[in-house]
């Protein structure tokens, strides 16, 4: 089954007086359960593609489908619902809510989804234990290290078992040990729970985990190889 279908995606940005091409007629199909890495130099369009797939950004033209849902035509509220119920995000800069504890950050998405309190507390504790944060549930982000914060972000992204996890440079701020641990976690989730992963990265170590590697340059897909 196709998880993501992109057809002729185009996106340009204005940077001062210049028009910069973010995506240039991108065609891409990602099947459910795939583990895909997007690689390429800065400005090659990796993040733009992730944002378009996640409904955070709207393409200038082209079509994006997630299953039967036409992402590029949804209004803001409906897009928010798609992200809430189908997509987990892991950002480069952790992006946790600073006034909430680790457990509350993980529970946040489930709270908005309307999961009952007991169930979400159980799930949050279990997932935090799974990412190695047992005992740190009540700490706020400022009281956690970078690696720990990124693991909270991953826990938040996967706790409600989304169909798709979009990760943008998830290991950029992590040391090699933490990166290895995180990638191990992604692989396990992908293998055991069949969560589809699309990861944008520069990191060759991360690329080595991918079963499909897509290289981008100047907003175009220049190679798409199974590994």
């Amino acid at each position, binding site marked *: 089954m196709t998880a993501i279908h992109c057809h002729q995606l185009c996106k340009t940005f204005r940077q001062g007086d210049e028009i910069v091409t973010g995506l240039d007629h991108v065609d891409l199909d990602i099947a459910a359960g795939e583990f895909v890495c997007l690689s390429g130099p800065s400005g090659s369009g990796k993040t733009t593609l992730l944002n378009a797939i996640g409904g955070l*950004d709207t393409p200038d033209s082209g079509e994006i489908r997630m299953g039967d849902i036409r992402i590029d035509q949804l209004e803001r509220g409906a897009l928010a619902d798609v992200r809430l119920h189908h*997509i987990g995000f892991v950002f480069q800069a952790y992006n946790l809510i600073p006034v909430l504890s680790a457990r509350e950050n993980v529970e*946040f998405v489930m709270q*908005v989804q309307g999961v009952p309190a007991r169930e979400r507390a159980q799930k949050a504790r279990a997932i935090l234990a799974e990412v190695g944060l047992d005992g740190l549930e009540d700490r706020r982000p400022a009281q956690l290290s970078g690696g720990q914060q990124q693991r909270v972000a991953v826990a938040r992204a996967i706790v409600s078992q989304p169909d798709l996890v979009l990760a943008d440079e998830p290991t950029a701020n992590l040391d090699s040990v933490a990166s290895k641990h995180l990638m191990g976690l992604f692989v396990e989730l992908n293998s055991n729970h069949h969560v589809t992963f699309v990861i944008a990265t520069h990191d060759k170590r991360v690329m080595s985990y991918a079963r499909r590697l897509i290289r981008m340059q100047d907003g175009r897909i220049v190679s798409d190889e199974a590994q």
Partner: protein
Amino acid sequence: MASPHLHFITLLTLSWRNLWRNKRRTAIMLGAISVGVWAMIFMTALMRGMVDDMINQGIRNLPGHIQLQNPSYLDDPSVTNSIAAPDDELRAALDGLGAARWATRIKVPAVIASERETRGVNLIGVDADAESDISGLPQHISEGRFIESDDDGGIVIGARLAEHLETRLGKRVVVMSQDPDNNISERGFRVVGIYRAKLPELEEFNVYAGRDTLQQLLGIEGRVSQIIIMGDDYRDLETLYQRLLAVLPDGLQARAWYQVDRYLAAMYNMMDGFVLVWIVIIFLALSFGLVNTLVMAIFERVREIGLIQALGMRPALIVYQILLESLLLLLIGLAAGNLLALISIQPMQDGVDVSVVAEGMAMMGAGSVLYPKLILSDMLLANVVVILLGILTSILPAWRAAQLDPVRALNTT
């Protein structure tokens, strides 16, 4: 779809914690709201107290809370529009009105003349025993005495009238008025008392004599102009009014003070409008701080707003969350402001001496001791205005936050 209850708890948690992120800023804003609300309630209580005093003085001076009179008397307050003095049945009914006190009066236009000057006045014939309960005028006698009996041959005039007439205590004056046949009736009176009123104008126009004496002068034995009834509170006359209607004989009309004295009624109504304007003006000053606080709070966490959008929070929920934050701020500020107002007004219940500005107060018809009057409806009005307008002024910053582009917001440093 999540239940609204779950959303509310999520939003409440976020709002509460966000509120205390910058404790100093929140504390300053809470201080401003508290002081603003305190000022609204405290100053309103002082103004209410002053107007209350003015109205009570006005009511006690002439109209009473409710008057029984000839239906034509309001249009033509002449002696021809008098009513029969209450018979035993009506007396018993009036005595049975509970806390109400009552008295009869004759009130006709007249001319008073001394050896040197002549003035037009209201000639008022009073029931000597009952009058002190009704008007309290006997306590304002500055020289001499008040009318001691219904057939007292003396007259009591105001200090300013005495000045105009160039007369004084013990001198004789002549009073002229019309009898029911339009003939001039006149009689000499000795000035037995001079009074000072809080409203100096009253000193010029109201002169008092014995009721029976005036009945004889005007040839209206057994008749009076008005029956004055006093209840407990000029604001709450409905029960008394209804009881009165039940015992009212034909040919008498009951009129409340605000129907009799349009000036007092206008002042009372103006006060309600004035309170609202006062509250809104203070709120407008507050609203700048409130909007600034919210805008700063949003500006500081643009990235987080982008994050919660990315995580799937609908724009409407972001608006609710920021409005909830504003509401929490307002509610805490209101609680503190109300408490502050209660604490500061309570010790002033025995009155505040404003004799430094006694002359100005007297010109407005109020006394030199101010009794703050805290009315529940005024407190409610202040609270409702602050909450409603506070939420209204928060809508724009909240809406703008919800319209942030998530990608740009997430990339904000």
